[in-house]
């Protein structure tokens, strides 16, 4: 048996991980592999530069991974990581699969030759026990019975053409001994609250971007970490160009337009932020161009 190779940081990559090690570690981060050499883990713990690299690589692999192993990836590896060429091991698997397929085919043929039986009557019952757990039981008149139990807050509706199961549940902010919050039947506000603060990646790219143009109106608005409470005033100032016209557009964290505000003076917009809590973006637009994008959060008073 070959001796296991020690992890060595490649000399041509200086102190940092090489492409092979980054790929290996990115797979570890993504959960594609459970184990990587201890030396690699210790290096990552110490090296902020490699951590940033690994995070970006894992993000990229998320995009490029279609979830299926490629032909090269399917090849089993030897102890030193090289793909094995053990055809005998593969052929035994192939034989087993072929045998199972043959049995299944024979079973299917026999079933086709037997006289048809009437379709068993399907029955669905919905029961609620003393602990408020809702149980959907699906059964047939023959021998099978399937039971699925959903959480305390489930509603099930069935129509003649389709069935839907929707589950509403209050987000957990539990401590020892704290019972879950009683069901309300509507989507809890706290769920929407959290969603309302998730940044929009595309708009984030534009926040603070500097555009090259001679007619930039030098827009001044709230900084990206600004927090408003409802009815605070958002102020935008700029140096106007007489040949341009300006407006302010507020969009939510999904890019949906909330409101468009016209200037009250040639170089000033004051707008009262009458908005629900969440993350919002402001876009300061000219006639043909977008001059500046900013971000602000609204929290409860």
């Amino acid at each position, binding site marked *: 048996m070959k001796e296991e190779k020690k992890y060595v940081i490649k000399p041509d990559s200086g102190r940092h991980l090489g*492409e092979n090690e980054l790929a290996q570690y990115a*797979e570890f981060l993504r959960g594609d592999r459970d184990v990587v050499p201890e030396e690699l883990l210790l290096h990552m713990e110490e090296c902020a530069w490699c951590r940033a690299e690994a995070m970006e690589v894992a993000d990229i*692999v998320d995009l490029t991974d279609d979830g299926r192993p490629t032909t090269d990836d399917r090849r089993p590896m030897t102890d030193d990581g090289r793909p094995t060429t053990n055809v005998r091991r593969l052929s035994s698997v192939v034989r087993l699969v072929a045998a199972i397929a043959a049995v299944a085919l024979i079973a299917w043929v026999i079933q086709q030759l037997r006289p048809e039986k009437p379709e068993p009557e399907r029955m669905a019952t919905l029961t609620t026990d003393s602990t408020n757990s809702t149980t959907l039981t699906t059964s047939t008149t023959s021998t099978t019975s399937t039971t699925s139990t959903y959480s305390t807050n489930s509603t099930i509706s069935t129509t003649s053409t389709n069935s839907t199961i929707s589950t509403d549940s209050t987000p957990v902010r539990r401590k020892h001994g704290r019972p879950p919050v009683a069901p309300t039947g509507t989507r809890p506000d706290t769920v929407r609250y959290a969603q309302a603060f998730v*940044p929009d990646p595309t708009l984030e790219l534009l926040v603070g971007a500097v555009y090259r143009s001679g007619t930039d109106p030098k827009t001044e608005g709230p900084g990206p970490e600004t927090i408003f409470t409802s009815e605070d005033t958002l102020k935008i100032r700029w140096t106007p160009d007489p040949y341009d016209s300006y407006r302010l557009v507020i969009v939510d964290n999904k890019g949906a337009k909330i409101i468009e505000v016209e200037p009250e003076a040639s170089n000033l917009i004051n707008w009262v932020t009458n908005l629900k809590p969440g993350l919002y973006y402001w876009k300061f637009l000219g006639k043909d161009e977008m001059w500046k994008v900013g*971000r602000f959060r609204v929290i409860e008073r």
Partner: protein
Amino acid sequence: MLREDPEKLLLKYQPVIRIIVKSLAYKGYLPKREISDLVQDVNRKLVERMPRIRSQYNYKSRFRTYFSVVVRNLCLEEFRKLRIVAEPAADLYEQPGNDSPADPVIIKQEFERLKRAIRMFYRDEPALWVTFRVLADLDIQPEDITRFGKTDIAGREPELARRLNQSFKKNKREKLEIVSEVLSELDAKSRSKEAVRKWFENRLEEILTLMNGKPPRSAYTLEILLILIEKAESEKNNS
């Protein structure tokens, strides 16, 4: 295919190359308007480098992963000098106001990214999770303490978890004080409250940078991370 027919391999991985070039373009590394030209340039460079790729790939990761790293590095290397964000049209990003059905998916993906960011701190991982959960007012279980792997505190996990749970609804400073007391018992050396605060602020700053990306494409703050953790926990409990 790598050794026998590299051209065919390159053909097969064209979607991977396009995805990476587009992704870097949308991050602001590359000009968006020239994506097809950039893909061609990357292909030309890859053909030149194929012998090197063939000799350097060590088969310890999947080829798709390794190839993605190579293409990414090649793009950054080649086009670093073109790092300009193209000016967008005014209403390009305005979308209909319906709620996106993908929200739970986004939460899941982002929480997965957070787990990765924290996992990279290796031996600090259990302490970071405990701290984040305390700050988010989420329940600490004895298993969270077991993850520290300290054999000398065996049997005391429920007590330590209970102490951490006493931080519920306290302010951030008080929560960190409680965390520091418990971490001092879990570590061989005692940690002062100030040391724990500095340690966490330090780690938090890097985790936020990792989550936001470089150049930044998100705007995570501690508060948003805590909401993300709470939301992910809620989704997990619902499923």
